Structures are given as structure tokens and as C-alpha cells.
């Protein structure tokens, strides 16, 4: 069965994929449907949804178009999710590979290092990091990457440990390939599948983390993200519940979609022996 066929067998994954494509479409279409900056104060504040043409989701505390913010926010969330996951991978994969391949003392030290990071409460560390670097897209991406890499390292290490004794690796060594070549050319390609699955889940987590940070007021102030919108709406939740509602639904759907797609990828890339679903 081809990759796509296996993926499509998981109906949930298909649903997830469709939702994800819709979100991406939202991000791309935003500048077309709402060419003006979502920060522009264009109407009376606190307009409820569907009360005025052009403002299907109403306006916020400053009279800004909620629908515009929602669509422009899609781009922000996806971008931050992808970039921070990539950075986390850039940290975690090499560390895990080296630990898993060489074993021994190197493994010990690297694992203590990883454990160390896992002992400090995730979110608290992220907050401190953003406070130190002062909130901006860069600092958020870095903070998320720094608290997210340990599971990557553990996974890659486990994979490397199980693969390093395979025959093709032995063969490569006999032929005289250097360690780095073996790591990069022989073993790593075989670990890609679980890494990809993990990565899709990490993007979801990264989006949740970013929205939580923005909610607390630690987001980049030039960027209207969904988390920011919910945070800004917190003080007026009695007057304008819709300001928190729609961005939250957007986050929920995106994270849900990513999780479903991740499961689909898992099925497609790591076909397991048949079992009850």
C-alpha cells in the first residue's frame, strides 16, 4: 500500500488534513480578503458579530476587525509553530544521535543534561526566558524550542541505540566509513519516520505554548496572534465574550488537525501489525 493510501485509511487523519489545509488557506487569503493591517482601528469598539457588513466577527476593545485579526493570526501561529519546532529539532536530533550512537560516558552526560532540562517546569522556564530576552517573535521561538527539545533527544537516542547494532551499520564500519557519515547517511534516514510524527505533534504543542505566552502578555506586541487576541479580551469578557471565543476555536481546530494528521502519519509511516482500532 502506498503512503497516501495508508494515510487515507485513517479517516480522522483525513479530517485533520482538510482542516489544516483550510487554516493554511486562511493564512494565505488573509492579505487578499483583509488587505489592511488588523491593528487598524476602523470601527466602533465592541460591535457584536454579524451586526455589520465586513465585520462578521465584530470588533474588539479598540474597534479593530476581529475577522481580520483571526485570519492574519493563522499565519503567525503556523509560522511560530513550524520555526520553533525546527529549532527544537536542530537541538534535539544531534544531541540524541550522539548520545545514542556513542553511548557510554557521552550518553551519560548528555542524558543528565536532558534530564536537567526536564526537571525545571516547562512553562515556568519559558516565561523566564521570554522575560529575559524581552518578548519578540525571536525570543518566543527560542524559548519554545529550549523547553521542547528534550523529548526529541530521547526519541532519537532510543532509535539510535536500537539501530546502531544493525548489520548495515556493521558493514559500513567494516568498509571504513567515518562515524559522522554512518550517523548521517546510514542511521538517521531510518529514524526519520518517528521524528516526523513527533514533529507534527510538536508543532501543535508549540502553537499552544505560543498562545499561552501571548495570553499572559508575553507575546510579540507587533504581531496579532490568536493567543494575544484571547489575552486582550480577558478584561472585557463580560461585555464581549466573542473576542475570546473565536480565536480559541481557531487554536483548538489547528491543534486538533495537527494531532489527527500526526496520527495519520504514524499509521502511514510505521505500519504496525494489524490490531483493533
Amino acid at each position, binding site marked *: 500500500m502506498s503512503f497516501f493510501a495508508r494515510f487515507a485509511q485513517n479517516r480522522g487523519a483525513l479530517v485533520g488534513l482538510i482542516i489544516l489545509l483550510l487554516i493554511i488557506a486562511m493564512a494565505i487569503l488573509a492579505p487578499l480578503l483583509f488587505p489592511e*493591517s488588523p491593528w487598524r*482601528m476602523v470601527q466602533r469598539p465592541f460591535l457584536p458579530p454579524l451586526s455589520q457588513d465586513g465585520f462578521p466577527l465584530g470588533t474588539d*476593545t*479598540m474597534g479593530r476587525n476581529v475577522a481580520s485579526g483571526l485570519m492574519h493570526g493563522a499565519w503567525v501561529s503556523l509560522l511560530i509553530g513550524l520555526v520553533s519546532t525546527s529549532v527544537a529539532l536542530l537541538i534535539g536530533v544531534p544531541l540524541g544521535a550522539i548520545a545514542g550512537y556513542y553511548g557510554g560516558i557521552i550518553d551519560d552526560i548528555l542524558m543528565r543534561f536532558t534530564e536537567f532540562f526536564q526537571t525545571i517546569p516547562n512553562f515556568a522556564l519559558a516565561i523566564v526566558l521570554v522575560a529575559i530576552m524581552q518578548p519578540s517573535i525571536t525570543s518566543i521561538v527560542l524559548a519554545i524550542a529550549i523547553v521542547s527539545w528534550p523529548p526529541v533527544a530521547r526519541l532519537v537516542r532510543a532509535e539510535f541505540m536500537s539501530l546502531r547494532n544493525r548489520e548495515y551499520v556493521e558493514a559500513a564500519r567494516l568498509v571504513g566509513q567515518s562515524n559522522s557519515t554512518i550517523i548521517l547517511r546510514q542511521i538517521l534516514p531510518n529514524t526519520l519516520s518517528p521524528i516526523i510524527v513527533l514533529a507534527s505533534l510538536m508543532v501543535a504543542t508549540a502553537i499552544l505554548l505560543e498562545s499561552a505566552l501571548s495570553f499572559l502578555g508575553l*507575546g510579540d506586541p*507587533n504581531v496579532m496572534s490568536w493567543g494575544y487576541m484571547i489575552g486582550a479580551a*480577558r*478584561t*472585557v469578557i463580560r461585555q464581549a465574550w466573542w473576542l475570546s471565543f473565536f480565536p480559541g476555536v481557531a487554536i483548538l481546530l489547528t491543534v486538533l488537525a495537527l494531532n489527527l494528521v500526526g496520527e495519520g502519519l504514524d499509521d502511514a509511516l510505521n505500519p504496525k501489525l494489524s490490531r483493533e482500532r
Partner: protein
Amino acid sequence: MKKPLALAISAAAFAFTSAAMADDPKEGGVVNTIIQPEPPGLVLGMVQNAPTRTVSGNIYEGLLRYTTDLEPMPQLAESWEVSEDGRTYTFHLREGVTWHDGEAFTADDVVFSADVFHRELNPSARAVLQHVESIEATDDHTVVFTLKQPFGPFLLSFEAGTFTMVPEHLYAGTDFRDNEHNDHPIGTGPFKFSNWERGTVIELVKNDDYYEEGLPYLDGVNWHIIPDGASRAVAFENETIDVLPSGTVENFDIPRLAEMDNVCMTEEGHEYFSPFAMLWMNNREGPTADKRFRQAVMYAMDREFAKDVLWNGLGNVPLSAFGSNARFQNDDLEPYDHNPERARELLDEMGYDGEEITILPLPYGETWTRWAEAVQQNLREVGINVETQATDVGGWNQRLGDWDYDLAFTYLYQYGDPALGISRTYLSDNIAKGSPWNNVEGYENERVDELFNEAATAFPDEEREKLYREVQEILHEDVPVGWLMELGFPTLYRCDVQNLVTSGVGVNDGFKDAWLDR
């Protein structure tokens, strides 16, 4: 949104007039109010933070109090005289005043507080003491201050927070900050410190031996600590809390709360402080160093919009550097109305090339964050390329202290007299790294320095007026900083708390005269 507020304000006005003709004050009852954030300490003078002033202004007293027009009223000083040449101030202290621990209050306490205690601990006091040559207790109930030259605002400096009267018999000769009595403040005020449960409540009880007959009417005041703005609003709504001092609820909640039954609102009670919001503009480098750019910024901002949307129509758009509560305001100047066209003209004139500048919001809550967003939009619309940089309080302090900013929000107290609160922003010898409260923008103008310095010690008032008028004209043209808003800080309270605001500092010492109509 304006109509219900107008209703609320007229309801408040009605409540005031009816209180004036009201029945006799009733004794008894405890008022529950809020203090936000929790003060770091309660010994006023040692700590000068706003929350401390609010709570401890009821425990401690100064020599004088001030009306909402900033006229001095007697407090610990019963009467006073100023010499012809304006250099000698003689205060006659009230007799029969005792500290909360029973000891008598005498002139020695005054000398100790002003000359020793505050000189060591209190920067605002130090600024005033610079003008003082000597402080002497000529007998148990008379104190004479001799100044080096006349200092117009001297009489305005005796509010409880600047020269708090602290007990000499407990503090003299000790290490003030480690003094054991810091945990249980002893003052002369209408209320005594009773209990402080950290994170929960500060309890004050009536001083039965207070020197003013019949006062205070209340049995006690409880200051609750509720860290979350929404919770504070809820507590007020379900009548757990009777008084919401200004700044304790988000502006967005005020219209809704003010419309409730039995809720009154007043804007009075801040005249002494005259909070004034400004926009620091870095005069040293970048496009902001050019005065045309700064003028363009003033024209670009829609300050009325901010007032209506963010401050519920409360407060006042300032004309220039002097707020309307400040003495000697020059109101003949051309206002900087919202005029994006003019802003663009000025930018063209100076050849602004689109260089990016940064703006630093004040990290003190949602209103300020929204305001920065609004100003950013205003500036973008006239072609100024501006990016917001978020900081928390620590970061904001640091960057301003290091002059690492282009535009930055702030607000200061003007303290009524230009020599007390306004000149510090513009004097060139007040330029020093490390503080967000001095001449942060780096403005240097010899004539302005001359005028301010002369006017501080000029005598009589007519002389000062002339000098201040001229300095305002110069400042209005140079725009060293942006003048954003004279902040309206409303106090919300249950209408049956009568007579709450009787001075220019509002609830800070207002509970002395307040009574509960229940």
C-alpha cells in the same frame, strides 16, 4: 458610552450636594476597600510607593492637608506664618496630640522627621530640603523652617507622604530600615494599624484618642488585597467591597460598575498628585532628536480618541507641559489638535526617510498596552515607521535609565506646583542615567533652565507667573516630550459612604472625615 457616565457623574454630584445638606454623620461601621498592588511596607516616608501612601496616609499625618484646590488646611500644624521675604516659615503645632502609643507629639518629632529621617530615606523630601537652611524647634509646639531663598511651593510640601511625621522616640538613633517598629507603624492619624495578613488584608482601627473631637466616625478600614482586576470588580459587585480607589479596576469595567445601584463615582481626590501621562521622546538621537518630528508626533496622535475609548471620557487632553491643575498654567497656547496633514507636512519638511523607531508601552496593564497600540496606528498613518517593543517593569526601568528607547510611555505626578513636579522633566542638570523619573529625554535649553530655576525661588507669585508663562511658550514650541493626558482617576464607592473625598489626596487621608450611612 458617555450618557450613562454623565448620569453617574451627576448622580455623584447629587450625592455630594445632598451629603452637604445631609443628616448628621452617623458613627460606627467598618469600610472595606482595596489596595492594589500590595504595598511593600507601611512606614510612610521610608516607602513612598503609591499603595503605601494610600493606606498609611490614614495612619500617619503631615503638618498640613490640602483641599481639592490645593489650598493648605491645618492638620498637625494649627496655624502658620510666612515672613515678608518668604524665607521663614513658622508652624504652630496643635497641642494635646499623642502618638498611637500614647507618647506626646512635639516639635522635636517634627525636626527629627524632616531633618533626619526623611533626609536619609526620602528622595522627594531631599529635593525640598535642598532649599532649607535650618529647621529649629523654638519650643515644644513651634517649629521654624529657614530657607536659603524664597521657595514658592514650600507650603505645598507638607503632605503626609513628603514630610511624614514619625515618632522620634522610636526611631532616633536606630537603623531606620531595620527598626522593630516598622512592622507596627505608629503615627498620629485617625486610624491605628491593627493587623497585616500578607496577601489578604491590612486592617486599620479607629484611634479613640484622636485629637479632633468626634473623628473619625468609622470604627475601622480594611484594605483587601485581591491581585486580579476581574476579581476586584466582582468583589465590588457583590458588595463585599465598598470603595474602589482609582487604578484598582480596569478602565473597561468602570462604566458598568458606575451604573450599578447605590454606586457613586468621583474624579476628585487626585488634584495634589495631578497624574500626567507623557511620551518620552529621545532628544539625543534618531528622528526624535528633530523638534519637527516631535511636533509631528503630537499632531499625529488622536488624543481625544484615546480619552474616549480607553479612559471612558475621564481626564483631560492637556494643552501643553503644564496640566490644568498646575499653578501658573499658560492657556494662551495653540493646541496640538489631531491633524495628520500637518504631521505629514512636518515630516516632509525635515526629510524623514522612514527610519524605523521603537515605542515602549508602559507595562502597567491592559489600558496602557491598548494605548501604545493606538498611538502606533496613529503614527503609522502619517508615515512614521514604528515598532512596539514589549518589556516588563524591570525591562522598562532599565531601558529608560539607559536611554535605550525612541518613544516611551510614562506617567508622573505634577504635584500642583511646577517647581515640585514639572521642572524636573526639563532641567538640564537633571539628566542622569539610571532613573526613569528625571530628564529622561535629554532636553537641554539654557533659557528654560534659567527660567525654571529663577521661578522656583522668585517672589512674589506674580513674578513666578511671568517666568512660567515664558517657559511654557518655549516648551510648547520645542516639544521635548509628548503630552498625552491629564489622567482622570475615578474613585468608585457605595453612595452610603459619605464624605469620602475631602482633600486633594482623596482616599489617602479621606477616611478621617468619612461616615457610613447604614
